[in-house]
């Protein structure tokens, strides 16, 4: 049944910008760009999709199907998880391409390195936690939930870009093998934070949605 729900998400509920923003992971190939902004697009995609869903009575349609109410939330979490991880995978592929054809670093901000991807996963986890748990309190106040979630995400992005300009954290802005090894714990922390965060987000959001009166 979960496969059918995810099929429904992609075929009916996902706004086309979900795919476009996923592809924007490719922006790490731009020679000079604040790459953390890519994650901002990743955060916009769930917002636009839930907004689009609200206007199309997506929740009502799904609630009438022979599925559990909490599975409605699980399918949404999986949709956004696929989009976010998809963006990370595309960005990683283009980061490899970028440094093989343009080995000079990014003069504007942080490099697309291991720490960058670790921070990206933390931003997504934090955004999902606030956005989805707030949204499923009502299942319609999407703008309020987005504002609450995007502010911490933007602050994280500003902090990450600032690391590239602070001498003490210069190792975070490097693609040298030594620096990348030092960055591995951040990547692992990001992966753990994302997985645990997503599971926690689902449980809290589902519990809230079960109490919502549609």
């Amino acid at each position, binding site marked *: *049944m979960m496969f*059918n729900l995810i*099929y*429904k998400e992609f*075929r*009916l509920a996902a706004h086309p910008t979900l795919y476009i923003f996923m592809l924007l992971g490719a922006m790490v190939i731009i020679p000079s760009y604040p790459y953390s902004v890519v994650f901002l697009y990743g955060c916009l995609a769930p917002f636009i999709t839930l907004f689009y869903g609200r206007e*199309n*009575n*997506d929740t*009502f*349609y799904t*609630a*009438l*199907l*022979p*599925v*559990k*109410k909490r599975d409605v939330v699980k399918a949404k979490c999986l949709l956004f998880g696929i989009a976010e991880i998809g963006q990370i995978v595309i960005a990683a592929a283009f980061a490899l391409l970028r440094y093989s054809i343009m080995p000079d670093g990014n003069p504007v901000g942080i490099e697309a390195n291991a720490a960058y991807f670790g921070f990206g996963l933390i931003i997504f986890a934090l955004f999902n936690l606030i956005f989805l748990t707030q949204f499923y309190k009502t299942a319609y106040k999407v703008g309020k939930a987005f504002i609450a979630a995007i502010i911490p995400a933007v602050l994280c992005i500003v902090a990450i870009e600032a690391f590239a300009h602070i001498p003490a954290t210069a190792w975070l802005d490097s693609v040298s093998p030594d620096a990348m090894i030092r960055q591995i714990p951040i990547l692992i922390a990001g992966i753990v934070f994302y997985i645990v965060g997503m599971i926690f987000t689902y449980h809290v959001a589902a519990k809230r949605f*079960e*109490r*919502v*009166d*549609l």
Partner: protein
Amino acid sequence: MNMLTVRGLTKKYPKFTLQDVSFSVLQGRIMGLIGKNGAGKSTTLKSMLNMVCPDKGHIQMLGRDFRAEEEACKQEIGVVLGGTDFYQYKKLADITAVTRRFYSHWDNPAYQKYMQMFELEPQKQIKQLSNGMKVKYLIALALSHNARLLILDEPTSGLDPVARDDLLGLFQQLVKSGERSILFSTHITSDLDKCADDITYIKDGKVLMSAEKEAFIQSFQHLKKPGESGLLTLEEIMVRTERVRYDV
């Protein structure tokens, strides 16, 4: 056989309470759920379907406890929420392609038959359909997974008289075989004069009466004014019961 039994359904809101609502829908019959706007008809239907979390109450649907076996019950029902359009810019074919996956008894030849019968074009978008056609499309989906109980919330609201008459005729056809039942909420009581077998009247969140239509009408004849002859219609019963005098 009862297709649906609602017992003691209660839902409290800060300014409204649906209180102890009980009624039954028999197999092969059309039950009209009447009441003025805001009386609690939609809340009753949504509470039954778990879309609204009731504080109390027991729902027996098609021989099953709805709370315990929600998914199995939903396999055998069709729900139409009047005025709620899903995915306005999607084609009917796309919505059907998704919906059919959720029903183990999906009958594609039957779906094709109903689409032709109702003159629905799969390549049309939802927003291109008239309100009457939207209801028919949702009924086509429900019938294609062999729904035995149709729950329709204000399906005729906003329809022109011809479209309403067309739908009411369809409802009667659907229960003719005796295998299906319809629970149909409306504030347009003349619809029920035409097609309902039983009536449940909700007033201010409480069931005022639930009975077979003739018995229901008979029980309200005390509302007749002196000199009036003939039976009061459902509309007259509702208007006289709900009438408010304003001292202005």
